[in-house]
């Protein structure tokens, strides 16, 4: 098969034939009876893991098993924000690995992921917030990551629509900003990794749900699926909110609770907001997509859930918080809202490492922050599955930290308790 690349020239060439000559970006293979490695979950993390297994480690006999369609879970349900403004050094290394990979991803995958590093601004609403912002900004800079403290005037210059009045519900005193933060096109990240992995020989098998594990002599040697048994030398799990469900099938429990996280999209308007803005007081964050829609996110729903839709009290909180920040947005109508099932861990940091069952490896616990971490999650799980050793960046994030007590408690760093 000739290796076609996406470029302005290819767009012109296919355009001359009225776009009838485009070929599918990945195959739809039937699963083979055996693979060197199986990844359960065809979201960003699963597809990225398969790509890096093939690209970095030369393991191309890999299948990604997805129960629905690729990128149809949380990868297609997030608010597309990327950033690495975390407090602890361990988290900084992890999330900045992801951001640095995002910065080269369009070229690496030959697929435009539409990364837009427009900046991510965290607001401060009180003197205590400002002290905390200064401490956090210093910690982020100490981690080697770009971050600037902004005073009230600097915020007002960047966000002319923000309610800066002193009698605002949450008055703005300043904030801190990561200039390299921004947004990327979420579907393109899944599709780009899928296409690139497929080209290296990875089988992407959709509509294939994992029902259980094949265990021999205490070791996982494959999975039972809706498309029959598939054996593998090692199995990786990248299934976010359903990690606990699959862990139960393998006979262990995880420190994870699944919640619905909602997001909202407004009707499209002309460019009015060129930052990602987050208010820790309301948990609300907002950015404007290239199409002109406002993309709005907030806190978790109030109770555990496996239902991919949100509940009304949280929607009301998020939208009233948004209108408190930007009163003029009250005129906008919402076009869509949706919910994704996120895997929340007590210390708000991910779990990357071997499972308690031999032959099984975990990438989960990203909570509300999985999208921004996709390239790192894929790199680190691939490293673990290929070498059997934890990558140095992944070492603090193994499941054993709950036993040893070496938690990486990031709840405070992001402003949202994910």
């Amino acid at each position: 098969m000739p290796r076609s690349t996406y470029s302005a020239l290819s767009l012109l060439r296919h355009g001359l034939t009225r776009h009838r000559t485009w070929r599918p970006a990945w195959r739809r293979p039937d699963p083979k009876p055996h693979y060197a490695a199986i990844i359960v979950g065809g979201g960003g993390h699963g597809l990225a893991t398969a790509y890096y297994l093939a690209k970095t480690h030369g393991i191309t006999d890999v299948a990604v098993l997805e129960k629905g369609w690729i990128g149809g879970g949380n990868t297609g349900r997030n608010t597309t924000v990327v950033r690495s403004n975390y407090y602890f050094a361990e988290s900084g290394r992890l999330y900045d690995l992801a951001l640095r990979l995002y910065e080269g991803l369009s070229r690496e995958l030959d697929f435009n992921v539409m990364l837009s590093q427009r900046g991510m601004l965290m607001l401060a609403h009180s003197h205590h917030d400002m002290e905390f912002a200064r401490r956090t900004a210093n910690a982020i800079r100490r981690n080697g990551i770009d971050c600037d403290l902004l005073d009230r005037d600097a915020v007002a210059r960047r966000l002319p629509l923000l309610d800066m009045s002193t009698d605002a519900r949450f008055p703005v005193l300043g904030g801190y900003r990561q200039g390299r933060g921004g947004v990327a096109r979420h579907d393109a990240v899944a599709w780009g990794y899928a296409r690139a992995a497929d080209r290296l020989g990875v089988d992407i098998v959709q509509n294939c749900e994992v029902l259980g594990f094949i265990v021999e002599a205490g070791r996982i040697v494959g999975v039972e699926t809706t498309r029959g048994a598939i054996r593998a030398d090692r199995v990786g799990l990248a299934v976010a909110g359903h990690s606990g469900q699959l862990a139960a099938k393998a006979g262990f429990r995880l420190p994870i609770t699944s919640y619905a996280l909602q997001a909202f999209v407004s009707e499209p308007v002309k460019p009015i907001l060129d930052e990602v803005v987050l208010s820790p007081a309301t948990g609300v964050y907002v950015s404007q997509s290239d199409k002109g829609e406002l993309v709005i996110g907030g806190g978790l729903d109030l109770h555990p859930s496996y239902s991919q839709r949100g509940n009304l009290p949280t929607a009301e909180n998020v939208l009233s918080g948004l209108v408190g920040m930007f009163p003029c947005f009250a005129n906008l109508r919402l076009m869509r809202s949706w919910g994704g099932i996120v895997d929340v861990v007590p210390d708000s940091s991910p779990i990357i490492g071997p499972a308690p069952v031999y032959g099984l490896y975990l990438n989960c616990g990203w909570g509300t922050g999985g999208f921004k971490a996709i390239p790192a999650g894929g790199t680190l799980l691939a490293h673990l599955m290929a070498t059997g050793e934890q990558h140095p960046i992944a070492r603090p994030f193994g499941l054993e930290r709950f036993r040893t007590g070496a938690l990486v408690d990031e709840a405070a760093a992001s402003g949202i308790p994910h």
Partner: protein
Amino acid sequence: MLLIPCPWCGLRDEAEFHCGGESHVVRPPDPDAADDAAWAAYLFDRDNAKGVGFERWLHRHGCGRWFNVARDTVTHEIRAVYGMTDPRPETAS
């Protein structure tokens, strides 16, 4: 939107309540004798049920009392409401 039947106040809006997490998590009877793995399992590991799960709820902006709820985490249907020290009710899942 959930309407939660508080055992003392009757049907109330979910915004009045606080979900206190999984119920029937049993503290090791002799903490000093529990090893790190058992203690970590008690503190952190959860069933995280898909389907009928058992949770503690607090009527925070009402009577201020705790109770247990059996709730389907997919449909959000409330199957049973029962006391804090009552055993898990039989619920068809």
